[in-house]
């Protein structure tokens, strides 16, 4: 059966997409600035995730910066927790805390802002992460709570390639379909490169789309750097269908900085001041 995929061609969509593209650019600038100003970090996966985060935090998700625990808010779980730098940048741009705190304190002793996100320390962070393969289960729990309480909030979980190598992710995928969690959306940031090289050389995870279909999820496969496609994909979340929803976002590791793109060497690294300058100029 063909899945229906609606495209937003409304008059307001174009302006909104331009706004979201600018937010994504700003997120990328912040990633480069923060990591350059600290001890380095996960450039590649942070840059690949920027467009989806832009769409979620600046268009789709309901939240209150003055009430981070608002019970009706949409939830976001960053399962690929090592890219907390782009997530914290998004939270700062949303207004949960000043960006300067992230810029100045990232990875500093006792700082809330570091390689991995800690929900007990970061305003607006709905779940802690670090070890991979944990996030989707937590998202299933949040989605189940929403169903129990008859709330209409949505739960977004972003996972990466490595989450698809962890078996626990498939336990969670199985349960989301079993419990018909149509309030759960899993965004797969498929940048195809892990620490040691291309995922398909190290430990193949394809066919990703078929796997999620086999787990009885609805899945949309998109260009994860086309903001319009990302936005349409999220807007197509099939509320009321009884099926959880995966967005397979094909992305590029290090997207936006040519010397980082598709290079596993930039999974984790530290730019020289010259590289930071060049990266910021390229992002614009």
């Amino acid at each position, binding site marked *: 059966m063909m899945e229906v995929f609606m495209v937003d061609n409304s008059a307001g969509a174009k302006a909104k997409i331009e706004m979201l593209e600018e937010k994504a650019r700003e997120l990328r600038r912040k990633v480069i600035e923060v990591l350059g100003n600290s001890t380095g970090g996960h450039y590649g996966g942070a840059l690949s995730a920027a467009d989806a985060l832009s769409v979620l935090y600046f268009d789709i998700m309901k939240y209150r910066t003055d009430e981070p625990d608002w019970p009706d808010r949409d939830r976001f779980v960053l399962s690929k927790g090592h890219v907390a730098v782009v997530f914290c940048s998004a939270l700062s741009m949303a207004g949960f805390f000043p960006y300067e705190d992230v810029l100045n304190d990232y990875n500093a002793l006792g700082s809330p802002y570091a390689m991995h996100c800690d929900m007990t320390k970061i305003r607006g962070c709905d*779940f802690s992460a670090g*070890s991979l393969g944990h996030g989707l289960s937590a998202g299933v729990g949040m989605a189940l709570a929403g169903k129990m309480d008859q709330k209409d909030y949505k739960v977004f979980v972003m996972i990466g390639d490595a989450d698809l190598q962890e078996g626990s992710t498939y*336990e969670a995928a*199985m*349960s989301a379909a079993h419990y018909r969690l149509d309030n759960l959306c899993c965004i797969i940031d498929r940048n195809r490169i892990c620490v040691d090289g291309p995922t398909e050389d190290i430990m193949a995870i394809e066919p990703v789309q078929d796997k999620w279909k086999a787990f009885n999820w609805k899945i949309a496969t998109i260009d994860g750097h086309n903001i319009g496609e990302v936005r349409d994909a999220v807007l197509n979340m099939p509320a009321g269908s009884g099926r959880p929803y995966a967005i397979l976002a094909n992305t590029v590791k290090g997207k936006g900085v040519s010397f980082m793109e598709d290079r596993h060497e930039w999974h984790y690294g530290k730019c020289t001041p010259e590289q930071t300058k060049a990266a910021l100029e390229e992002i614009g």
Partner: protein
Amino acid sequence: MVELADEVKAYSDVICALAEEHEEIVLLVADMTKPYFLMPMVEKLGRRFINTGVAEQNLMGISAGLATCGKRAYAHTYTPFAVLRACEQVRDDIAYTEQRVVIAGMCSGINMGTGGSTHQATEDIGILRAMPHMVIMTPADARESAKIARASYEIDHKGPIFIRLGRYPTPVVYQEDYDWEFGKGVTVREGKDLTIIATGHMVYYALEATKILEKEGIDARLIDIHTIKPIDREIIVKAAEETGAIVTAEEHNVLGGFGAAVSEVVVQECPVPVEMVGIRDLWCSVGPTEEMYEKFELTEPYVAEAARKVLKRKK
């Protein structure tokens, strides 16, 4: 004939009543509804009863996610699966995040003798004790199990609460109601020559040991530590000061477990001789439950022998 009672059933009776009373309670099982006597709750709780199937990592992760939304999650699976297979989910998703999740682990210790080492847990105390924000409670018998079940709902705590349960009915220690307080040891028997500090099912064997010792003119105090973390330092220090010798008794590896926890208090606050009764760093293999305690030297003659030994070391 030793009177037996089922501590899992006693736990379950309390939890089921609490779940019917309090809307925020969610009961979760990893294909363990029947062993925990939770069958009636499947229909009664509806959405508030979740079966993850045999997927313990997911059980813990879902419990954590529910807790972030204000739910009181009770996760049920055998202790080896809860603490070993899903160890990292317990640590990262529940303890590190300070989420109030109760983990009720069955088949702790060697109580499920016939299951063999994969279905026994003799390292869980050591593992869980090292996690910040963790509470560990273990009942001496069914009556205490009910008290622990109620405490798991009532105590003021942010973080996981692990309840260390056996598998089959165990000997009754407490014939009638008694004063019980979270985090406070129970003095089961007064005594002045030495103190046996026991936890879980070992309280029964320790109590029997005090009777053997009494016939030999040895007056042994017996303390039941039902809350292993946070441990009752005060009662341990008092015992060390007043009796000058201690025997610990646990259904767990003596390495890193309950005896170690008691010893940490003793050596820091009032050093006196300590002897430990427990599993001697062995895999306990297979056997009928009632024969396992004897085979692995946990029964009253072994506790009594440890008492005689520690008395020889007492100055």
